[in-house]
């Protein structure tokens, strides 16, 4: 029984469909048209402004706020502004006194005596005492509840003595030329109950609050021991992993500083933001498992090095800003970097084929190239590398691996054939190169070279800078020739900042120094 009375009029609305299509077309036009207009730049007229609130976007979260527990790179990057050690790294990669005013090393290089800087205060207003230094240095030997994380420095400390109200002496068990950089470990007040909940240090900024996975907020520490520093009042480190939403937040003006941005976004942000390009202390490598056939054969590794063209990867993925490298050292470590290593293996298809023939792989071979999923940069590099190796008959099967699995199977377990990852540099060149020592726990390349181990051993025995630098260069040349891994590039560090933010100082290590930043109006 159909019931609805037939008076219901029918609307003829063909017109509606036409209007809808029109609207959609306009929308698409606007989307593609908008990225083009240029903006005028009158930087010179602006004057420095005091204070202001800064929002920094970082992609990795902190593991622990307690400086002696924290190991993850993402934590030191932020907490660098809160905690300071006896010494402090500078943007040129040197070490300068911080909590300590000055220090001397005994002739036998075993006793390091530090003089406490007078008038230096903790964030809770209390003066820093020698007892705090002794407390902090003994704490890193792991004898405190909750975590027995033992630091390398602690292993080598024989005894810490208080000389007087202003000086403290640290005696080592054996000479270690590379120990100085370890004295940057944080000095914390001895009577604070839980440093994790209330991280108090001597740095330019005071901790306010931390929402895990969301943000960490700190504010200016007015009586910081360097006068007039910092200028910014309040800093919020907003933690978001997804690069796409960070780019959008930048464009919407919701974040002021975004370090380590992908080069692909430069054209988008060029007109509206400052783009700072820096050399990063970061080495991207194609690691080949030296224990796995055919990578145990040096000629095969050389053939791969000749077949690969780092410049093409740099142009495609890093907008030509990255630097090709020949060894496990970034050019940013100026006084230690060995420039000759760059020319050792340049792109040469014939040489590569000749070497392959010599090694008995005339018509190439197949191997699995595992790529960590959460670093799109490395996954994309893998795509280009597999194309490049095709030209010499080597077939690289790309397999993307979850980060957790990459860490366990490849990094710790060394169960892989080829992979692409970036190794971040440290202040101390020894810490960058020690990974290739055959006995090192993280030598996931399975590289073994008696000659290399000998050079690295010698370095630890001497403290004279000149001879140490030559030995570092010699070690780099061995790596360049042996190529346990193919050194692709030192990716450029690209930082996007708000148009009115000045004073960004890039560091050769994984830190964001907020104290030098200021706004202009």
């Amino acid at each position, binding site marked *: *029984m*159909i*019931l*609805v*009375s*037939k*008076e*219901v009029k029918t609307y003829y609305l063909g017109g509606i469909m036409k209007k809808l299509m029109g609207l959609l077309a306009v929308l698409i036009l606007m989307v593609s048209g908008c990225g083009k207009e240029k903006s005028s730049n009158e930087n010179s007229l602006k004057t420095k402004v005091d204070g202001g609130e800064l929002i920094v976007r970082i992609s990795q979260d902190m593991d622990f706020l307690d400086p002696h527990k924290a190991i993850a790179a993402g934590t030191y990057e932020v907490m660098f502004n809160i905690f300071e050690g006896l010494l402090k790294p500078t943007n040129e990669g040197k070490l300068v006194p911080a909590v300590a005013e000055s220090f001397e090393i005994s002739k036998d290089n075993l006793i390091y005596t530090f003089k406490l800087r007078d008038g230096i205060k903790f964030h809770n207003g209390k003066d820093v005492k020698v007892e705090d230094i002794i407390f902090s240095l003994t704490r890193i030997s792991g004898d405190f509840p909750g975590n027995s994380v033992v630091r390398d420095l602690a292993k080598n400390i024989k005894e810490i003595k208080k000389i007087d109200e202003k000086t403290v002496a640290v005696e080592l068990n054996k000479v270690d030329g590379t120990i100085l950089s370890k004295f940057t470990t944080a000095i914390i007040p001895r009577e604070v109950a839980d440093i994790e909940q209330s991280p108090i240090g001597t740095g330019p900024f005071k901790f306010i609050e931390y929402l895990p996975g969301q943000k960490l907020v700190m504010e200016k520490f007015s009586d910081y021991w360097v006068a007039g520093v910092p200028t910014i009042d309040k800093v919020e480190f907003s933690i978001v992993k997804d690069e796409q939403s960070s780019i959008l937040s930048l464009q919407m003006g919701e974040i002021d500083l975004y370090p380590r941005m992908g080069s692909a976004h430069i054209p988008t942000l060029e007109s509206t933001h400052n783009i700072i390009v820096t050399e990063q202390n970061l080495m991207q490598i194609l690691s080949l498992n030296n224990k796995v056939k055919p990578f145990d054969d040096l000629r095969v590794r050389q053939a791969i090095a000749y077949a690969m063209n780092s410049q093409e990867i740099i142009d495609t993925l890093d907008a030509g800003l990255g630097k090709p490298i020949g060894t496990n050292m970034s050019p940013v470590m100026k006084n230690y970097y060995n420039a000759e290593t760059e020319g050792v293996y340049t792109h040469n298809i014939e040489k590569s084929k000749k070497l392959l023939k010599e090694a008995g792989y005339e018509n190439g071979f197949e191997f699995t190239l595992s790529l960590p999923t959460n670093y799109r940069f490395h996954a994309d590099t893998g795509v280009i590398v597999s194309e490049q190796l095709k030209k010499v008959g080597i077939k690289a099967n790309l397999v993307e691996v979850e980060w957790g699995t990459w860490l366990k199977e490849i990094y710790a377990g060394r169960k892989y054939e080829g992979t692409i990852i970036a190794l971040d540099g440290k202040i101390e060149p020894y810490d960058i190169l020690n990974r290739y020592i055959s006995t090192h726990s993280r030598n996931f390349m399975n590289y073994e070279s008696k000659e290399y181990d000998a050079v690295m051993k010698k370095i630890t025995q001497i403290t004279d800078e000149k001879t140490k630098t030559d030995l570092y260069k010699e070690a780099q040349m061995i790596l360049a020739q042996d190529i346990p891994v193919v050194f692709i590039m030192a990716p450029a560090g690209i930082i996007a900042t708000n148009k009115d933010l000045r004073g960004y100082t890039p560091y050769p290590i994984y830190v964001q120094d907020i104290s030098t930043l200021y706004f202009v109006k």
Partner: protein
Amino acid sequence: MTIEIKNLNVYFNEKTKLQAVNNLSFNVKKGEIMGLVGESGCGKSLTSLSIMRLLGKNASLTGEINFLGENILNLSKKEMGSLRGKEISMIFQEPLTALNPLHRVGKQISEILKIHTSLSKKEIKVKTLDLMQEVNLKDLENTYKKFPHELSGGQRQRIIIAMAIACEPKLIIADEPTTALDVSTQAQIIDLLKEINNKKHNSLLFISHDLDLVGDLCHRIAIMYAGHIIEVIEDLKDAKHPYTKCLLDAIPNPLHKGNELYSIPGRVPTLAERESGCPFAGRCPIAKERCHKILPELLEREDRHLLRCLYV
């Protein structure tokens, strides 16, 4: 003359145009109970829906329906709205589904009063209870609050009747009101309709397929077959049309105990199968050649007895 229908035609326009009712004409006088009887599919329900103008989207109708002298087909939707329920009301076949399951029965009765009368809330409540009293419902206060699923079929039909007589309509159309009820409730509902008719002198159009029932209740009976009225009589006994006679023979009679029950050969033609000539010609025992060609007129025989047949 409460209502007079002249040459009513109802068409269904599915793929092709089908005629369900062709030029039906009959009238119902004031206070008269008119029966409309026929097998299912003869168009009797369609007629009632046409009067109420509640036909579906793909149905269309022509002809005149004069109610109290005015052709209601020309009325606007609003005017028709004020007519429905006030002047003409309807009782349906399925009491189970005819009431809104989510509203209390009392409220559904008062709804029709709210639309057509300007009584206050309290007066409406009192009137509703009176109406329920009139249709012989018991324990009024509780029943008022009950939901349809809490009442029996008979009680629900009484609620619908209460709704139908709420605004003292001139014409009530009852479309097979008792078919879905058991025999004992059926008799009570019929007596109730008779009682209302005597008291209120409204005219009642009673549609059914049960000859016996119609025989007792109605003053006049129109028998329909395949969209046509074939006979209008006051008493079943003096039926003359072959179809009516066949129908009467088909009623099981205790006197003819033992011998086989009679049933009319063949079946009712569907809308598409109806051809010209007398609709019953195909199944009529006394059909002749001419019956198939000419559609006989509905002529008045002695004292208001109408008949549509060439040979009787």
